[in-house]
């Protein structure tokens, strides 16, 4: 059942990503410090070399989602706020099966598309109401809704929760 569900989400994900190729809309150019750079199979870009870059302001202008959860690296329940990875990829008309995420310290991990299609995975910029600095594993941290989904309280999903994220490559 779970496998079937995951498969269907996966197929639906590809389908929706393919659909979004047909239309194109402009992404406004970045003004402040770049906090995120998205490359790879994306249709919407704002740089000459075909990448999409974001400062905090652009990201915070996108619809925000809040997640309250525990994590193995924090004490107690923490309130995170950020953009749904799903929304972001839709915005960029991304096509592919996974995201190669890279952190400031060059730590990398692959995030399958079905992860954020099935769960509300966010690119968090706020923790307990405050913007996150590098010292707080900011400025961006991929957060899964663990407390609401015991099924993803495993090492595999924990390992995909990359912090100090600054690059995404859609594959």
């Amino acid at each position, binding site marked *: 059942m779970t496998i079937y569900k995951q498969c269907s989400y996966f197929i639906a994900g590809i389908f929706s990503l393919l659909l979004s190729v047909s239309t194109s809309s402009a992404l406004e150019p970045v003004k402040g410090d770049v906090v995120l750079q998205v490359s790879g199979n994306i249709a919407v870009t704002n740089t000459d070399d075909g990448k999409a870059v974001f400062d905090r302001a652009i990201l915070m202008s996108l619809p925000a989602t809040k997640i309250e959860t525990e*994590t*193995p*690296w*924090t*004490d107690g329940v923490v309130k995170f706020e950020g953009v749904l990875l799903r929304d972001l990829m839709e915005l960029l008309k991304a096509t592919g099966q996974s995201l190669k995420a890279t952190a*400031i*310290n060059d*730590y990398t991990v692959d995030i399958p598309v079905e992860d954020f299609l099935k769960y509300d995975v966010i690119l968090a910029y706020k923790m307990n109401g405050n913007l996150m*600095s*590098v*010292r*707080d*594993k900011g400025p961006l941290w991929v957060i899964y809704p663990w407390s609401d989904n015991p099924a993803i309280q495993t*090492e595999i999903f924990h390992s995909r929760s990359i*912090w*100090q994220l600054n690059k995404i490559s859609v594959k």
Partner: protein
Amino acid sequence: MFRNIRYLYAVLIIATFSMTASAYWLISGVVQESTKLESVARDILIGVASQTSYELHQFIYSLNQYKLSNSSISKQQLITRYDILWSRRKTNTLGKVGAAFKQLPKAPEFLNQFHITLIETEEAVLSLKRKDTNTLAQLAKRYRDLVPSLHQITIAAARKATIDSTRLHTELKIVGYWARILLPSILVTGFLVAAILWRERKSLNSLTQHLEERILESTLDLRKTNQILKDEIQEREKLEAKLVQSQKMEMVGQLTGGIAHDFNNLLAIIQGNAELLETLVKEENVRLIKPIIKATARGSDLTQRLLAFSRKQPLRPESLNLLSLVESITDLLDRSLGETISVKINAEENIWTALADAAQVENAVLNLAVNARHAMPNGGQLSIDISNFILEETDAIHLTDAVAGDYVLLCVSDTGTGMSKDTMEHAFEPFFTTKDVGKGSGLGLSMVYGFVKQSGGHIDLYSEEGLGTSIMIYLPRALESHESPLSHLSSSDIPQGNGETILVLEDDKDVLILAGKILTSLNYNVVPTNDTETALQVLKSNQKIDLILSDVVLPGGMSGPEFFKENKDIISTQKIIYMSGYPTEAAATTQKSNSWDPNDILLTKPFQRRELALQLKIALMADTQVTKV
């Protein structure tokens, strides 16, 4: 049933197999999973430690690179590296991961030192100038000092992981060892249990079956035995009841017979004297004597009936065709039963002749008919069935006093009210009646009973309340033809004698005198004797004796017939008339000595003058025709 059990065991075995297999599979799965999870957890702890180590080295490297003129590292990058160290410190202290890290040996000290270093170098890092090589060198040194202890922690994490995994491995080995022993054991046990159950069930089944059969058998045996016992008890009870009944009847009969006998003698005297008186008194006084004679006649009638019941009435058995006898009284029956009751007579073909007193049989049938009418006030049917009946020895025991042999059965049945059990018990007793006072004598059935018994037959009663009553009379079959000497008697006059000489032998003086007077009045010459000696003297003398009139019971213990048989040589006449108030007594004594001759005439006391006269006449008239053995 058996097939189903076989299937059941097959299923049980398969279940044991599959359960064992899945248990094995589950355990190995769980073991594998735990091993994997554990190793992942260890890796993460090692990872966390080494990642911090890596970031520390990166920062030290960045510091060293920063002072170079052609360095690719910007100030911002350096600060970021510094900030990353801060985040590493948080990772090493916060959450589950931090907690696990703090458990490692020397980790708290390291974290403390790490924190102090970060705080103390913060200002220097943030205000760092590329050319300030001295500060850079100092900072690098400060952070290099952290490396050995962090390295030790990393090694400790690795060692811990190794130790843990070794311990886990050992435990798993033990589990595996036990699993290898236990699982086959479970399998074998399951198999054995199934096999044992199979065998147990089988033997239990056969045992149960055997037991059930035996129980059934013994139950049947017991039931049979019980039934036999019950039957025997019933039989015994019936017999006892019959015996009691018959003893009671016997006793009542003896009592009745005794009274009747003595009373009869009294009656004989009264009657005889009254009759004599009748010839002597004046015409106008005869009317005073008539009632006396009438009363004695009635009294005689009563004693007759009582004697009938007590089986002591004089009987003259003869060969009878019961069917012709019953048919001859059909008119009489019809008249006494009335219009509402129909009479049906059935008889078997070739019916045997019965040996009984015809008049008494008629009397009995009429008595039964009267009872039947009483039982059927609203009409019904009276059936008279006549059939041959062979009473076997085995059947004979059911009828008290009954003797096996051939009988003619006369069955008189009505469709009346029937009798209650109580009534049935007393039905044959004298003076017992269900009729209203004054309507019945209560002697009807008693007379029939006595008559049948005296005739050597049996009587039985069957009745059901609301259905009717049957009286079964078994009369002995006549094997020889017996002609009744009385059947020719029909004269209505009192025959007179012609002066013939009659020897009277009677011990009772009154009776002797009476007999003498009667005989004299009948124109006979009387020679009275009151004992055998006197009689013998007379007989021995040359006096001509035409007839002997003798009592059956004589003083001196010898019976009349015995006495005359013994002295037949000196008796000139062969004509003897016996008289008795107690005929069975006579029969008993005479039969004993075999001295009874059927041609000897028997008179019952009290005899009427006419009866005596008739008997005398017949005897004398028979003359030489009568021959004796």
